[in-house]
């Protein structure tokens, strides 16, 4: 019989995974057995520890919050909106729900019989995989480790603070060197020497039963306690500590400290009774633990030519790719990349200085501007920089300026060779306008602040985010002081900066209204930089400036500082910082994926979870813009 409702439900479900993977008949069977549920705001679909329903749920309209109660706190784990499935617990095991599901707004849900889905899962491997993955991939915490097969990984992650080491799966050596327990100590030592390793495993039936390390040879053999002709079993440490292949660095470190050992055995299932698959040494962890960037920086300090800088910068891109793939927190990534960027710039300056015929006539400072100044430049972009030199007498000015312009030109050319392209707007120290003495800079900023034309405001947004890279720090301090004095004496400037911060409205309505670029090359694409990142950058700059905070140029650091200054707005600022991290991570990921600036996103490439992530970020933008609107009375003064 015809069933219009089932057809409509079919049409809805087929847009969302895993239903899009089903055969038509399978999906129609599901659709025609759906129960439609209406639920009011703040009502529960189910509660934590409740016994599972016969159904799981998909959100048709509205939004369902998943909450986990810990002690007395209700923690929002995830928000499900249109097309999201939840309440899959009964599918996995007939056990109590681990979370509560509460309607965040009035919602319509489709309840789908677990029994029917179970039947389908058994015949459709792809659906099975998706269901498992949907437990482990977590939308709310974008840095969560992807750990397929580990159901409810999102809860594990909720309990961890995802620091660098915890999210990373340790890389162990997959070809462990081993011998039998009948081997003599001498033979074992010969194998170790030949293979250039510091340890050898003793294996019986492919299972690790003991280990000998350099230390054992040193303390037990070289001291003459035991003869080298004895069997390895005489001196081996036994039993060995075993872990599964999924061991994280954090787990490995803890295990090593706890057992006072330097080597862990990796076996198929993590128990000592399973087949040996690898060995993880303390050294492996040291290598993993940020050794790569330090090697790069070491290489930079030793660099004698631009080609080396270029090589390091290319290496850095690989490093970045690895970090993004491993979901390492963006704040950590940007710190490392900024260090390398700065080190490259410093080297470019040093190399250029060496090429000059004379030493600099007076002290000077090199400033990075814009995203590099904020230490948020992850993907390689064009260069924005400026130079400031000590005040000199009138007669020396021309000569001095000429010297620094020549120097700047050398530096910018080198940076260009490295890969930081020349700034199309010529915001570089090689431009006479941006290679100025201290008093000239003070004057320049004062003009921008007291005569805030639209262009002046735009300049401020670029030049306010300067970061001292090389030279005399004192010069830059003096400039900063002068700028803050100007800002304080001309308060309306902040209101104007506030207006500027709101010029790109929050894209909250993005997914419904398609707030995308309407013309040009990037038609039908979303401008992530100007629509999402810039509003947050502008807001952070404005608010820290209004609090007279001098030493914070980084957007995340600025929001964190604001949290301390305005504890009453803590949640808002934290959510802004989080959103910024997510967006920056996302942009970097996009940029790496498509080998471009990552600035524009094609709408049709967005996955459901990407959309949700972005939507969450846009909410923060909306909120911070509301705050700015009120605080800087933008509606009142009619700006």
């Amino acid at each position, binding site marked *: 019989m*015809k069933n*219009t409702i089932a057809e409509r439900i079919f049409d809805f479900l087929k847009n969302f995974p895993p239903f899009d993977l089903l055969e038509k008949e399978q999906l129609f069977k599901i659709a025609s*057995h759906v129960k439609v549920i*209406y639920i009011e705001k703040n009502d529960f679909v189910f509660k934590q520890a409740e016994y599972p329903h016969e159904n799981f749920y998909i959100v048709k*309209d509205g939004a369902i919050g998943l909450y986990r109660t810990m002690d007395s706190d209700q923690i929002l784990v995830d928000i499900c909106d249109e097309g999201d499935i939840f309440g899959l617990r009964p599918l996995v095991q007939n056990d109590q729900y681990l979370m509560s599901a509460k309607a965040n707004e009035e919602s319509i849900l489709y309840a789908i019989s677990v029994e029917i889905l179970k039947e389908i899962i058994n015949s459709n491997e792809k659906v099975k995989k998706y269901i498992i993955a949907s437990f482990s991939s977590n939308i709310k915490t974008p840095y969560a480790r992807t750990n397929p097969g580990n159901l409810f990984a999102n809860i594990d992650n909720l309990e961890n603070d995802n620091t660098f080491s915890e999210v990373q799966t340790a890389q162990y050596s997959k070809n462990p060197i081993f011998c039998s327990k009948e081997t003599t100590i001498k033979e074992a030592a010969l194998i170790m020497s030949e293979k250039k390793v510091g340890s050898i495993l003793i294996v019986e039936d492919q299972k690790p039963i003991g280990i000998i390390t350099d230390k054992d040879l040193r303390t037990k053999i070289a001291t003459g306690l035991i003869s080298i002709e004895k069997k390895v079993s005489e001196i081996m440490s036994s039993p060995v500590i075993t872990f599964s292949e999924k061991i994280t660095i954090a787990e490995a470190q803890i295990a090593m400290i706890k057992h006072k050992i330097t080597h862990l055995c990796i076996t198929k299932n993590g128990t000592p009774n399973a087949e040996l698959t690898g060995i993880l040494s303390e050294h492996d962890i040291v290598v993993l633990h940020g050794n790569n960037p330090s090697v790069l920086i070491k290489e930079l300090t030793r660099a004698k030519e631009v080609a080396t800088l270029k090589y390091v910068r290319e290496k850095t891109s690989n490093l970045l790719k690895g970090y993004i793939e491993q979901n390492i927190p963006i704040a950590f990534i940007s710190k490392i990349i900024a260090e390398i960027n700065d080190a490259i710039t410093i080297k470019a300056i040093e190399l250029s200085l060496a090429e000059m015929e004379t030493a600099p006539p007076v002290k000077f400072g090199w400033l990075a501007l814009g995203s590099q100044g904020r230490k948020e430049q992850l993907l390689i972009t064009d260069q924005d920089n400026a130079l400031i030199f000590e005040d000199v007498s009138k007669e020396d000015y021309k000569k001095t300026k000429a010297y620094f312009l020549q120097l700047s030109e050398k530096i910018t050319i080198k940076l260009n060779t490295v890969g930081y392209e020349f700034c199309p707007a010529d915001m570089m120290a090689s431009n006479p306008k941006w290679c100025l003495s201290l008093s000239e800079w003070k004057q320049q900023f004062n003009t921008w602040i007291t005569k805030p034309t639209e262009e002046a405001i735009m300049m401020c947004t670029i030049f306010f985010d300067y970061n001292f890279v090389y030279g005399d720090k004192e010069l830059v301090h003096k400039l900063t002081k002068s700028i803050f004095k100007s800002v304080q004496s001309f308060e309306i400037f902040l209101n104007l900066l506030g207006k500027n911060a709101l010029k790109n409205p929050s894209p909250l309505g993005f997914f419904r209204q398609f707030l995308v670029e309407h013309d040009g090359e990037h038609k039908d694409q979303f401008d992530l930089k100007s629509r999402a990142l810039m509003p947050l950058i502008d807001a952070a700059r404005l608010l820290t400036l209004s609090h007279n905070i001098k030493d914070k140029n980084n957007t995340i650091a600025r929001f964190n500082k604001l949290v301390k200054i305005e504890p009453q707005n803590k949640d808002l600022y934290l959510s802004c910082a989080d959103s910024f991290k997510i967006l920056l991570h996302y942009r970097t990921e996009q940029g790496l994926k498509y080998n471009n600036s990552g600035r524009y996103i094609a709408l049709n490439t967005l996955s459901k979870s990407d959309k949700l992530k972005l939507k969450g970020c846009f909410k923060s933008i909306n909120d911070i813009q509301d705050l700015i609107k009120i605080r800087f009375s933008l509606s009142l003064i009619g700006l």
Partner: protein
Amino acid sequence: MLNFFKRKKYPEFWQKHIDTVKNCKKYANYENIRFVALDTETTGFDYENDRILCIGAVAIQNNRILVSDSFEVYIKQDVFNKETVKIHGIRKNGTEIKVSEEEALIAFLDYLDDAIIIAHHTKFDMTMINNALKRLNVGPIQSKQLDTNYIHKKIATEDRFKKLFSLDELCEIYNVKKHDRHTALGDALITAYIFLKLTFKYKKNNVLNLTELINTNYYLNK
């Protein structure tokens, strides 16, 4: 005597309907009550001359719309009004599988079982159905009936003096998306959504029981 005589002659399907409704014991416990949200598409609004084109219905129990428990039937037409084709889209010789009016009604009563009927402007749909039953020498429908219009009026006291709310108006008020508007089953589903929302609202100030709900509806179920 005449009544007694008549009753003896009831066809089996009609006798069954009478007995089912009379003997139903579910009405005391709200969660057990099966509601059937229904809508009809007709050739027009004339009770005597127009005919039912389609009956669509979906069951609701314990605040859940049961898609598997739904009903949709298209009826062969002798009367045809091309004006209303624009509204319901059912053509005289459309592709839907159509059955005779009698078959449709028998199937519907079988589906209806002991359910309470819920519709929007119930009087219209019921009169159309009852007139069709009359052509089979039976009727009217014995089931208890509710009307979303009247339940809404009971809750939304600020609109007390407005007599009629259209289905579209209620969709606006209760934020129900209008998919498949003007298909019988589509409108039945919309009615079901509205009914769920109404009963949720109703529950806040009233104890939800059938008698109270039926009392919102002062001209049906006399």
